[in-house]
């Protein structure tokens, strides 16, 4: 059974896709997601082998989503779209396959064969990644895209990843690892990324530790391991 996730903002489209997948008898459906935020969370949590991904979704499109997932956890991607204007782009992004809505069962069978081949071959998908300039954040039940230059720092704890900046603190589904790899945010501690543009002062402490003060006066710890990199970056 192939562990799979359906991502589509329309309820009926998710239901139909689920029914079609069930008819093939090849898939274990881990869940369905109504938007990219839910999808990032589900992918990071459930590690699906393949996702059926709608292109047109609110706030973050299917393409945006791919840029926010860790390469090591990247499932195989089958795009599902109502209109073929995205087809070309989908191939550029080296997705495994794409399906047009309404999906024909025969066409789905073909996709299944491709998925199986890829899973057996263990071939790696590589997506061109673009640097993130806006980070999707949840505040008060609303998803908004926060400009990177407004962010002071990001830190993770047991409850998740917190984005601090612009006078507010919000929550994101993106991991520190992805944020570090795809943006100009810099690691200063196992649990902290800082925006170098927002650093006001660095105080060196005993035992090779340090402390950053951001422009708004917040203090972040710098661990020994990352201090040298920070020094190189800021050349001091």
């Amino acid at each position, binding site marked *: 059974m192939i562990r799979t996730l359906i991502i589509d903002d*329309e309820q*009926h489209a998710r239901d*139909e896709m689920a029914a079609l997948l069930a008819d093939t008898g090849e898939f274990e459906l881990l869940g369905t997601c109504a938007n990219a935020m839910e999808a990032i969370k589900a992918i990071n949590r459930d590690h699906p082998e393949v996702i059926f991904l709608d292109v*047109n979704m609110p*706030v973050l499109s299917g393409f945006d989503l791919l840029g926010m997932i860790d390469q090591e956890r990247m499932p195989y991607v089958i795009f599902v779209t*109502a*209109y073929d204007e995205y087809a070309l782009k989908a191939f550029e992004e080296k997705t495994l396959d794409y399906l047009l*809505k309404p999906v024909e069962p025969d066409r789905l069978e073909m996709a299944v064969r491709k998925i199986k081949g890829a899973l057996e071959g263990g071939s790696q998908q590589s997506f061109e990644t673009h640097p993130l300039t806006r980070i999707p954040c949840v505040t008060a039940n*609303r998803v908004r895209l926060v400009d990177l230059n407004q962010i002071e720092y990001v830190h993770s704890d047991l409850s998740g990843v917190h984005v601090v900046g612009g006078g507010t603190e919000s929550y994101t589904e993106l991991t520190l690892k992805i944020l570090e790899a795809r943006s100009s945010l810099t690691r200063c501690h196992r649990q902290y990324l800082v925006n170098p543009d927002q650093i006001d002062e660095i105080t060196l402490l005993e035992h090779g530790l340090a402390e950053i003060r951001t422009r708004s006066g917040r203090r972040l710890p710098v661990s020994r391991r990352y201090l040298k990199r920070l020094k190189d970056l800021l050349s001091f």
Partner: protein
Amino acid sequence: MKLAFILLQHLAFFLVVAYLFSKSPAFRPMVRLAEDPLGQRQKLFLYFIFASISIAGTYFGLSLEGGEANTRAIGAVLAGLIGGPFLGTAVGLTSGLHSYTLGGLTAFASGISTPMEGLLGGLVHLHLVRRGQAGKVLNPGVALFTTMAAEVLQMLVILALSRPFDEALLLVKKIALPMILANGAGSALFLSLLRDLKGSRDKVGAKFTAQALSIADQLLALLSKGFNQETAQQMAEIIRRETKVGAVGITDREKILAFSGIGNDHHRAGIPIAAEQTKAAIRENRVIYADGKKDPYQCALSDNCPLGSALAVPLRRDQEVIGVIKLYEPRYQLFLNLNRSLGEGLAALLSHQLLRSSYDEQKNLLVQAELKLIQAQVNPHFLFNTLNTIIAVIRTDPDKARELLRHLSNFFRKNLKRSGDLATLGEELDHVRSYLEIEEARFGDRLNVDFEIDESLLGLVMPTFTLQPVIENAIKHGLAEIIGAGTIYIRARRENGLAVIEVEDDAGTYQAPSDDSGLGMGIVDKRLKNQYGDTYGVNIEFSPGEWTRVSIRLPAPSGGRS
């Protein structure tokens, strides 16, 4: 007293000069004297005119013992009055020097007094201009008193400078009164003649302008109904009636469309163009004029045609000749220059109007075409998503699926309506409801719709596809772009004598259209403004993150509350 009469007789000479002067180009600036100062060239011209008049005054003078009675002052004073102190003094100096060379008892006094008289005229000119009464320099009364004052001055100068004083006194006693009267009257008559001529010229100009505008008005009204045989006939009759030429003909490129006036027994509508002149006007795209003398006009249709001269003016639409307007006069009648320029002007005006109406037509076609494009653009994505939704619904709720298919077919049937048609608000709402039923099925809980319609507006008439693109935008660029639920409010009400339809959503995602996203709305606005005028159309307000509100303003139907 006899002397005064003789001098007055000489005035006839000045009146002839004044008349000739009024025909010269130098007269033209007089008309605008109140506004602009004279140019250097005109001043030079005036200098020669008035110096000649003044010197002629000396020659026409009557020699008396040791002196003379003359009308030299008129030229100098008028030069000063009309051209200012500098011109007046210059003319006076010229004429005074000339008089001095002739010698005599008063020779020296004349040499001094004539420039002074010119200067006096000039000072009066300056005074009037400074007080903002420049128009008064052409006032005969002003000329009368200024000249009389100038002559009194001259008499005083003669008495002061001429020796022996006794002879001078005797002379002055004799000539003072006749010269003061004659010169004053001469200046006044000269100016009054100038003024009358200027007035009559203005009147002719005004009458001609009024006539041209009246013809233009009537012709433009006709032309807006199209350029065809019927309107051409009416246009020909209007032109003939207003210009009173012998006959007027209008042709297209091949045949006579209309003819009115002398010779209509053989110049008839529908006959192919025979006149070489008309053919040349079409071929060479220029005005052709046969004055009947140098270039004889001979009717190509009949040897007995009474028409003797003709003007053929091409009628153009965007550089291309589409016909000719012809003005004719019979053999015994002169072709007036006035009518010649009027004919050419009218053809230019009509050509301009033709270009404009073809441009308007094209613009309208463009709007229609754009609208067709928009209709075609929305379809695929919406259609396939809808079909996908219905396929899913069939599994769980076949009745609901049947209902959705009926809405889909209603929606597409309404979409097939011709975009130039009109629809009532009721019909537009029916179209929109089918669309919204489908979108509600697609988006489920995420989409709520709220109607608030003034029932008395259901008969409100508007172009088809006024409402649908606005609502589609509210979903496509509004509610479909947010995570979570939203509501779309559709309201119709009367406001300040207008009918207002509002489409509001609480997605708050409005962004000024950068590419094609705003195209649909732009076209709706353009069509409403085309149809009803600039007061009406589409207006967008928004508050980022909160709401977007599109208001459509239409003329309210009569009846109902306001």
